[in-house]
């Protein structure tokens, strides 16, 4: 990188003043779209994400139907204006991979057997990106699925851990992602307010085995905080909704 590499940690604080294990500010709102069966708007730092769930509904093309369970589709997409340099519209290789592993995070958790022959589509749009978009999208998608009333065994909550200036940090922002040594996005299945398993796990960079293990523990603590906010967003919606 010829770009000037900033010092990412100054006096034990991160560039935006956060502690190492501190999340960026998060805002979650459920049920923001009229046409979708379930939806969610989410901000995580400067990320702005909107997720919609359609279904269970008929699958097109029909040959994709599964007579015994629902087919899950997940589309991660970045708006052309979401990043500094305009992104060419449509799926690139990165989006294809993110969509695949994200779908796989939800597949074992959605009770697909309850909806044979049908399809559940999860569409997530990144309106503004600032590192950690795949985890922010998973968090939004999770709330949108609950909002749509899709039966699930639990909820997916995601957060990344990074290594910057030799230090493990939670929920990296853009500068930490660009200039850091490693990035590890995690997603967990949370059930009965407990982390039950890892639903998504990727990593690039360079970390020792010990750092990866410590990173997992840091991510778990962060995920529990996000989980509370997801829950709160869902409760809020159903609290204010008028019953006719």
């Amino acid at each position, binding site marked *: 990188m010829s770009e000037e590499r900033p010092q990412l940690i100054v006096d034990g604080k991160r560039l935006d003043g956060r502690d190492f294990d501190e999340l960026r500010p998060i805002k979650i709102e459920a049920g923001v779209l009229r046409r979708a069966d379930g939806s969610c708007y989410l901000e995580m730092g400067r990320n702005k994400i909107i997720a919609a769930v359609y279904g269970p509904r008929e699958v097109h093309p029909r040959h994709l139907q599964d007579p015994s369970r629902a087919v899950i589709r997940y589309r991660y997409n970045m708006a052309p204006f979401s990043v500094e340099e305009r992104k060419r519209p449509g799926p690139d290789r*990165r989006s*294809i991979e993110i969509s695949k*592993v994200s779908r796989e995070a939800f597949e*074992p958790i959605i009770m697909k057997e309850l909806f044979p022959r049908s399809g559940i589509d999860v569409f997530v749009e990144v309106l503004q990106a600032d590192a950690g978009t795949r985890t922010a999208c998973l968090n939004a998608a999770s709330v949108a699925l609950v909002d749509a009333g899709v039966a699930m065994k639990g909820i997916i909550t995601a957060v990344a851990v990074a290594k910057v200036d030799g230090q493990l940090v939670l929920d990296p922002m853009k500068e930490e992602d660009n200039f850091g040594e490693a990035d590890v996005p995690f997603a967990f*299945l949370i059930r009965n307010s407990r982390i039950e*398993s890892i639903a*998504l796990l990727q990593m*690039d960079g360079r970390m020792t085995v010990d750092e*990866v293990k410590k990173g997992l523990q840091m991510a778990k603590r962060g995920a529990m905080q996000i989980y509370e906010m997801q829950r709160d967003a869902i409760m809020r919606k159903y609290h204010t909704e008028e019953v006719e």
Partner: protein
Amino acid sequence: MGEDILMDIKRDYVLSRLGDGERIDGRKFDEFRPIEIQTNVISKAEGSALVKIGDTQVVVGVKLQPGEPFPDAPDKGIIITNAELVPLASPTFEPGPPDENSVELARVVDRGIRESEAVDLSKLCIAEGEKVWLIFIDIHALDDDGNLRDASALAAIAAILTATVPAERFDIGNDFPLPVRDLPVSVTSLVIDDKALIDPSRDEISVGEYFMTITTDQEDNIVAMQKSGAYQLSEEKFYELIDVSVAKARELRQLLRDI
């Protein structure tokens, strides 16, 4: 349809043998199938390797040509990794543009090489801001009997190890070996319930595509990981996979050193 029924039978067989603590081909849980690495198999390529892991076969060719650098790295060479799951390699592969599986395969292999900084890209600058060497790593599957991922990763680094920068052909000085400074090795396991099967064969994968790939460098650092498949991974299993992957990668790395 016949294929489906066969798959069901295979799945039941794999699971029943696993119940007895055995793999269908008698391997230990952390045992790879026999590995064979042949290098310089394609003389038209600047570097190449054919890797066989059991009956899985993949060939990787490395081609180099001058091209424009990325604006944010004007003095560094560029790695471009691509994978083709050609229909010749499996009855389930179809012709057409790369699907999510080939994109994922290419990106996971790419990450191992890139993040371990296996190729010294700073030595591949021709004219800063104008011309650098582009390294094309093309993965070509020949026979998918399971675990194309490790076979591809191994073939890619083997091909890189034997590659020459064709400077003379482009009138940019003398040819020189592609500068390599690390040996990333990926180890893929199939996670079934509480068990992990290293280097799963196609028959074992009939149980489900529940993979975890961990790539390490020669200092045992982790440089890339990818959980792929619709399954849930427990924390304990994850830790176990890290340890076994680090140990196995060391053995595989020795094969690369012997090239």
